[in-house]
């Protein structure tokens, strides 16, 4: 694995016009087995997203996803490139004017040269119009939607071989005037029908959350936010945790949680923790890359689990085991976290609260 700040010529898309990001040119990074059009790994992520979603060459998914790719979401895994093709077509039929606007790609070399993978954490805020009926969003509302998604992709030889996808679906539903709790209840009712073994993935993932964190070198920029998450969700030392943040840090969490300061971050963390008893947190992947102006971008993929025994935001306590898959993007400056953008699918959390997904 190379250093987190190796290859400084592989630039973040932050602060760059799209024309610059997508400019053609010679390769800047060793990418064995990748199509010649891709100059570096950031270019691969940004350009293939553009080719598939905006140029509508959806069939490229068959050469850009592994045949056996597993896409992990909090609604369950989907398997295979054909599932990706069909899902992409369905999404674009619902919102064909979708602009998939890449905000950042925070990536790591996880031993590519030794048979490992390149890993990207791609933060996207899509802009689209709800033009067609959708299982989640309901009948076409012709309202604008703009929500943040983070797609973590493990890649080798031009293909995404494993993906973790988190999307702010609670916000998407409210943007079209829908009722997320009603959607969650409807889905949960369907989940309780049929072969319950199909929800076995969730129990396995919950068990895994109580395992060890991924390796996090002390000198890696991710060590700071990782320690923050551990201090909060493992040790319940929220004041100590929040000391990693600037006193005026900006915090954006799902479902339009938006505020500033250490106290606000503690509020977000304790809100979840008050709902989930016997909680466990696991940090599953880290990446970091330089940003303009000397800042550093850090991506953490993490999971949180616990038993819903606290009344409050999610209604009366249900006693159900809840799983949260989250990705956080942090901006570090001067040894502090100045921005925390965290995404998890709170609609899928409500689905579990309502007794779905095997909960």
């Amino acid at each position, binding site marked *: 694995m190379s250093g987190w700040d190796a290859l400084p010529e592989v630039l973040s898309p932050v602060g760059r*016009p799209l024309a610059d990001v997508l400019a053609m040119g010679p390769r800047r990074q060793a990418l064995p087995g990748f199509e010649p059009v891709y100059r570096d790994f950031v270019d691969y992520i940004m350009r293939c997203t553009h080719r598939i979603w905006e140029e509508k060459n959806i069939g490229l998914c068959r050469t850009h996803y592994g045949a056996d790719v597993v896409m992990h979401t909090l609604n369950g895994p989907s398997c295979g490139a054909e599932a990706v093709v069909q899902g992409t077509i369905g999404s674009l039929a619902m919102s064909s004017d979708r602009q998939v606007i890449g905000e950042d790609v925070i990536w790591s070399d996880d031993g590519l040269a030794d048979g490992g993978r390149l890993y990207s954490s791609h933060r996207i805020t899509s802009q689209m119009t709800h033009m067609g009926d959708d299982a989640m969003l309901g009948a076409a509302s012709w309202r604008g939607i703009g929500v943040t998604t983070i797609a973590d992709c493990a890649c080798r030889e031009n293909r995404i071989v494993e993906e973790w996808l988190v999307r702010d679906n609670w916000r998407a539903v*409210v943007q079209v005037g829908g009722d997320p709790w009603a959607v969650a209840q409807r889905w949960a009712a369907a989940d309780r029908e049929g072969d319950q073994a199909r929800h076995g993935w969730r129990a396995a993932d919950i068990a895994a959350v109580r395992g060890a964190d991924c390796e996090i070198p002390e000198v890696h920029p991710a060590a700071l936010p990782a320690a923050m998450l551990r201090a909060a969700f493992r040790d319940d030392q929220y004041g100590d945790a929040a000391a990693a943040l600037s*006193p005026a840090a*900006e915090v954006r969490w799902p479902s339009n949680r938006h505020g500033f300061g250490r*106290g606000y971050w503690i*509020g977000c963390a304790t809100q979840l923790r008050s709902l989930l008893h016997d909680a466990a947190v696991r940090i599953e992947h880290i990446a970091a890359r330089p940003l303009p102006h000397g800042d550093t971008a850090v991506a953490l993929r993490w999971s949180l689990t616990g038993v819903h025994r606290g009344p409050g935001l999610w209604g009366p306590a249900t006693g159900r085991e809840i799983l949260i898959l989250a990705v956080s993007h942090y901006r570090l*400056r*001067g040894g502090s976290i100045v921005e925390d953008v965290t995404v998890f699918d709170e609609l899928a959390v409500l689905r579990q609260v309502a007794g779905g997904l095997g909960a």
Partner: protein
Amino acid sequence: MTGLHALAGGARDAPVLGACRLESGGVDVFGSEAIIDAFRRAPLPLDDAVSVENARGVALFASGEAVFADLYDGYIGRLWRVGQADPGTLEPAVGVAFDPDLAQARATVLFAASDHPDLAADAAARVEAAGRTIIDDPAQFRARACVVRAFGDATTGAALYAVHGLAAGVVRTPSLAMAAACWNDEGFRIVRDHPSAHVAHVRIAG
């Protein structure tokens, strides 16, 4: 004329990055197309405009409003518009209960100079003084100003604040609003967002 002047005046070719976010009165607008459209529909009259600029940020004060921009080689990467009369409809949001101070020794302005490399050391007092003025609001029981952006020196500078507050009265309705200040030898100019209804949910199920 800077790119921000062009954008604020409603120009269609303003240098706005594709992944730019505009926040105005708690309403988000994302992407260059939507942002340029938003300013085209509601431009700022720039007759009395005052601007404070450096390589990485610019602030524009005009007609009772303020616009702050993060710059990347002249491109606008992030925007805040403060004091707009009708920014649009707030989305529903999950409300978060929190303590802004973490101590009985109450802070007023939450500020770390290290967050703002383009702010000269002698300007910190200006930033804090403007922040204290901003939160001196009888409509608020408890207001705290978080310094979001700040640049300049003691003679000329600007700062952008996020103000968390609780309403004065029996029901302490929470709020988050932006405010902006610029200063010169003559004093401060301060702009605040208009009060808006805070649509926060404390329960989203059950």
